[in-house]
C-alpha cells in the first residue's frame, strides 16, 4: 500500500508558524533573505494548499538555503539545476505546488539555460529569483546582474560585463507571469508573491535583495525615503505609470522609445498609456523593463505580464488521455506480443 492512500487529517487553517521549520536560518544578520522568507510564510496559509503538497526546490547559494527553513517538502539541489528537478517533480505529480528558489548566479549564470527553457515550456512552477547582484555564498564575486565596472573579488579593476536584465530574459523566453519586487517593501512583495503563486504556468518573480556583506545598498535608491519616489515606479493594472516625489510624472511611448511626461493626478491626460499585464504580446513590457537602471528613468516594480497559456503538464496529461482513448489503456501482455513475433514449435 502506498503512502498516498493514508487518510488525510481534517483540513485546518494553517498559520505562519506551521511553515517554520526546525532549522534556524543561517544568513548574515541584516540579509535581505530574511524578509523574503517572512513574506513567503505569510502568504502560504491562505493559499488553500495542504502543506504536504508544497515543495521548494533550490540550487546553491545563500538564497538557495531557503528550503531548509520551510516546514514543507524541499530539495536543496546543485548549482543552477533547480528548474530541472522542479520540472521532473511537477510532471510526475501535477498535484504538487512547486516553487523554485534561486539566485542571480544560480539562476542566470550557471543555470541560465534551464531557466529560459522552463519559461518557454510554461511548466506550472513559481520561480523566485533573489537578485543581490553578487555571488554571496562564494564570498563576493560579480554575477551576471552586477553592474559594469563593479569592483568585486574577481574584478579588482572593475567588471567588464554588461548585466542581464532578468525580466527581459523571462519575457523573451515566453514566461507567462513576470514580476519584480524588492526585499524592503514587504507589502508589495506579498501582493506579488500571491499573484505569482496563484498563476497557472511558469511564474517568474525577480526580488531585488540586499546583500549586506558584499554588495550593501545595491538597491538603496529604490527604498530610501529621499529617492524612492523618483527612482521606483510601481506599475498598477489599468493605471498610468505614475511616479515622482509629487506623483507628478508619467511615461509615454513616443514612436520608438519611452519618455517621461508631466502628470496631473487631478487632471490626467486621457490619452496617457495605462498598464496592461494581460497584453498577449509583451513588446511594451519589454520596453518598460529596459528602463531599469537607466538614470533617466525610474525602475519599474510590480507585475509586467500575466497571461493564460496552456501549461506543459496540462498538455502532457491531455496527450496521455488522448492516446489512451485511441489505443486503449496500456497492457503488458499486449506490449510483449506486438512487433515481429514468431513461434518455435516443439519438435
Amino acid at each position: 500500500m502506498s503512502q498516498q492512500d493514508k487518510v488525510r487529517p481534517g483540513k485546518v487553517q494553517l498559520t505562519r508558524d506551521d511553515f517554520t521549520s526546525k532549522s534556524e536560518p543561517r544568513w548574515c544578520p541584516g540579509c535581505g533573505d530574511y524578509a523574503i522568507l517572512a513574506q513567503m510564510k505569510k502568504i502560504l496559509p491562505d493559499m488553500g494548499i495542504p502543506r504536504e503538497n508544497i515543495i521548494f526546490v533550490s540550487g546553491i547559494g545563500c538564497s538557495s538555503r531557503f528550503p531548509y527553513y520551510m516546514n514543507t517538502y524541499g530539495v536543496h539541489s546543485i548549482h543552477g539545476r533547480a528548474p530541472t528537478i522542479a520540472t521532473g517533480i511537477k510532471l510526475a505529480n501535477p498535484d504538487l505546488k512547486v516553487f523554485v528558489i534561486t539566485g542571480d548566479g544560480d539562476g542566470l549564470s550557471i543555470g541560465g539555460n534551464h531557466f529560459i527553457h522552463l519559461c518557454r515550456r510554461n511548466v506550472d512552477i513559481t520561480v523566485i529569483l533573489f537578485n543581490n547582484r553578487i555571488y554571496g555564498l562564494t564570498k563576493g564575486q560579480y554575477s551576471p546582474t552586477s553592474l559594469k565596472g563593479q569592483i568585486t573579488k574577481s574584478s579588482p579593476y572593475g567588471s567588464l560585463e554588461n548585466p542581464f536584465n532578468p525580466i527581459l530574459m523571462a519575457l523573451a523566453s515566453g514566461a507567462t507571469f513576470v514580476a519584480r519586487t524588492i526585499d524592503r517593501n514587504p507589502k508589495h512583495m506579498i501582493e506579488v508573491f500571491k499573484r505569482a503563486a496563484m498563476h497557472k504556468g511558469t511564474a517568474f518573480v525577480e526580488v531585488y535583495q540586499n546583500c549586506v556583506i558584499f554588495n550593501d545598498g545595491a538597491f538603496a535608491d529604490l527604498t530610501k525615503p529621499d529617492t524612492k519616489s523618483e527612482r521606483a515606479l510601481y506599475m498598477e493594472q489599468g493605471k498610468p505609470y505614475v511616479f515622482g516625489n509629487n506623483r507628478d510624472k508619467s511615461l509615454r511611448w513616443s514612436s520608438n522609445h519611452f519618455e517621461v511626461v508631466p502628470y496631473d493626478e487631478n487632471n490626467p491626460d486621457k490619452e496617457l498609456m495605462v498598464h496592461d499585464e494581460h497584453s498577449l504580446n509583451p513588446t511594451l513590457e519589454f520596453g518598460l523593463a529596459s528602463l531599469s537602471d537607466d538614470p533617466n528613468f525610474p525602475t519599474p516594480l510590480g507585475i509586467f505580464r500575466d497571461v493564460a497559456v496552456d501549461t506543459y503538464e496540462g498538455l502532457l496529461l491531455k496527450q496521455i488521455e488522448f492516446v489512451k482513448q485511441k489505443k486503449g489503456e496500456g497492457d503488458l501482455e499486449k506490449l510483449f506480443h506486438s512487433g515481429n513475433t514468431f513461434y518455435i514449435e516443439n519438435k
Partner: protein
Amino acid sequence: MEKKESKTLERVTIRFAGDSGDGMQLTGMRFTNTTALEGHELVTLPDYPAEIRAPAGTLFGVSGFQIQISSSEIHTPGDQPDVLVAMNPAALKVNLKLVSDNGILIINSDAFQGRNLALAGYETNPLEDDSLKRYQVFAVPITTLTRRALEGVKLSVKEKDRSKNFFALGMTFWLFTHPLEPTIEWIKEKFKNRPELVEANIKALNAGYNYALSTELFSTTYRVDKAKKAPGKYRNVTGNEALSIGFITAAKKAHKELFLGSYPITPASEILHELSKYRNYDVKTFQAEDEIAGIGAAIGASYAGALGITTTSGPGVALKSEFLGFAVMAELPLVVTNVQRGGPSTGLPTKTEQADLLQALYGRNGEAPMPIIAAKSPADCFSAALEASKIALMFSTPVFLLTDGYIANGSEPWLIPDVDSIPEIEVHYATDPDTFMPYKRDPKTLARMIALPGTPGFEHHIGGLEKDDTGDVAYDPDNHDRMVRLRAEKIERINQYVDQPEINGDPEGELLLISWGSTYGTVFTAIEEIRKRGKKVSWYHLRWIYPFPLSLEKYIHNFKNVLVPEINLGQLVKVIRDRYLVDAKGFNRVRGLPLNTHELVEAIENILQK
C-alpha cells in the same frame, strides 16, 4: 551451366552494403524479419556512418547491415560475411576485406563506372581485373533490371531507382530459399498511402527473385534449418527496444509511472523514440534541453514517486556526473543507461566500445558509489532494465546500466516471458510520521526511508550537503566518515539480493576467461570453438560489475591464467587485479567493432599452448 543444387548450412553470415541512401538498413531489417519468422537463430549488426546521408558514392557514406543466421545457438553477427551484397564500388571497397575466402559477392554492376569508381579509389574496374578472383562474383545490372521491371509504373526514374534494394533482396531471398510473403505484406502496410510505391517495390522484389530463379544465376541455393531453441513465442528485438520494454515492465510491476528524462544522442536516441510511443502506458517522456536537465528531471520525478530513468551515451554521462553524485548523496532511485559508443570525446559516435566502465565506476567527485549492471545481448536488455530498476527502487540508489552500440542496434529473438511470472517490485515507504527520519535506514538493505511529497506528516528536505540521520546538514567529521562508509556498504549489500554468476566449465584449470557486457556473444562462440577442438577453458561472465560478485572468489585462484577480453584498453581487468591480486591479462581491441571471434580463439590457443 552448372547444375543447380541446394545445400543445408549450419550457419551463414550475410552483409548488405551500399550508399547511405540505398536503403541497406531497411533491406537488412526485412531480411532479418523473414529469417526470424522462419525460426532461425539470428544476430544482427547494423553499421552505418555518422552522416545522415553522405554524398553518393563516397567511402565514408557506406552503410552496412550484417546478419548471421543459424540452426544452432549463436551470439555474434559473424566475423566474416559469407555473402556480401554490394550496391556500389565504395561498398565493395570498404567491405571486401571482411568477406570469407570463396565468399559470394552479389554486385550491382551498373554502379561500377566512372565517378563512382574514382570516388571509391579504384583505378581500374574490379569487375574487369583480376582482383576478385578469390570470390564467387555475381555481377548483376541491378539498376537496369529494376528500371525495366518497373516500366509502366507511374514514378520518375529517380524514384524507381529507390526500389533497387528490393530487387537485391529478392535475389537473396531466392538464394536462401526464404519466402516473399512477409515482405510483400509489410510493403503493403508501410506504403499504404502511396499505392505506386507498393506496386514498384513488390514488382522489384519479385523481379529480383525471378531473375535469380530463371537465370539460374546461382548454382546453389542454401537452406538453414529451423533453430532447435526452446519452443515458445519469440519476438525479434533490438537492444534499445528490449530495454524500453524492460523499463515499462519494471514501472508497471512497481505500480509506478515511468518517467524518462533524456536528451537525444547516438546510439541511445531510439530508447527515447520508443518510449515516447507509450503514452497509454503512463510513460512520461521528457526531451530535455541537455543531458543535465534530463537527469535532473528524472531525479525530480523519482523524488515525486515515479520510476525515474535517464538514457544517454558516454559524452552525456560526462555531463550527468555532477547530478549522479547528487543522486548518490540524496539516495534516490534512478536508472542511468549508458549505450556506450566509441570514445574519447565525440570519438566514433556510431561505433561500439566498452570504454566507459571506469567512468561508471569512478567518474564522480568524492566517494560516490553506484551499482553497475551490464546487458550481454539485445534480448538481455529486457532483463537488465528490469533488474536495474528493481535494485534502484529497493536500495534507493542510482544504478548504472551499461549497454553499447552493438547490442543497442543489433537484434535477436527474445523468448516472450509470461507477464504474470514476473514478480512484483516492492517499494517500501516510511509509514510512521513520528519516527520518520529521511536518513534512517532499513537495517537489512541500508536503504534510507522514503516518503513522497504529498504525504502529510513526512515533510522533509533532501540535498547534496552531507546530512545526519535526521536530514539536517551536518559538518561533523565523524558523521561524514560514517556516512561515506554507510553509502559504500549499502551497495555491497546488493550482492545478497542478486544472483551470483555461475562459472561455466571446470572450477579449476589452465585458463579462466572473465567478461562483461556485449562481448558475451564473442566469448561464447570462441569457447565453443576451443572446446570443439578438445581443449578446456572456463568462463565467468559478470552481470553486476559493482558490487563485484562474490562467487568469483572461490575459483579465481585455481587457474594458471586469467584472460579478460574487452573492447577497451583494459578496464575490468584493473578491477580484477586490484581485488584478487592475480596476474590477469587483457585481450583488447579498440576498433569500434565487436571483438573478432577468430582473433580471440587464437589468443586463447596461444595461452593454452604455453
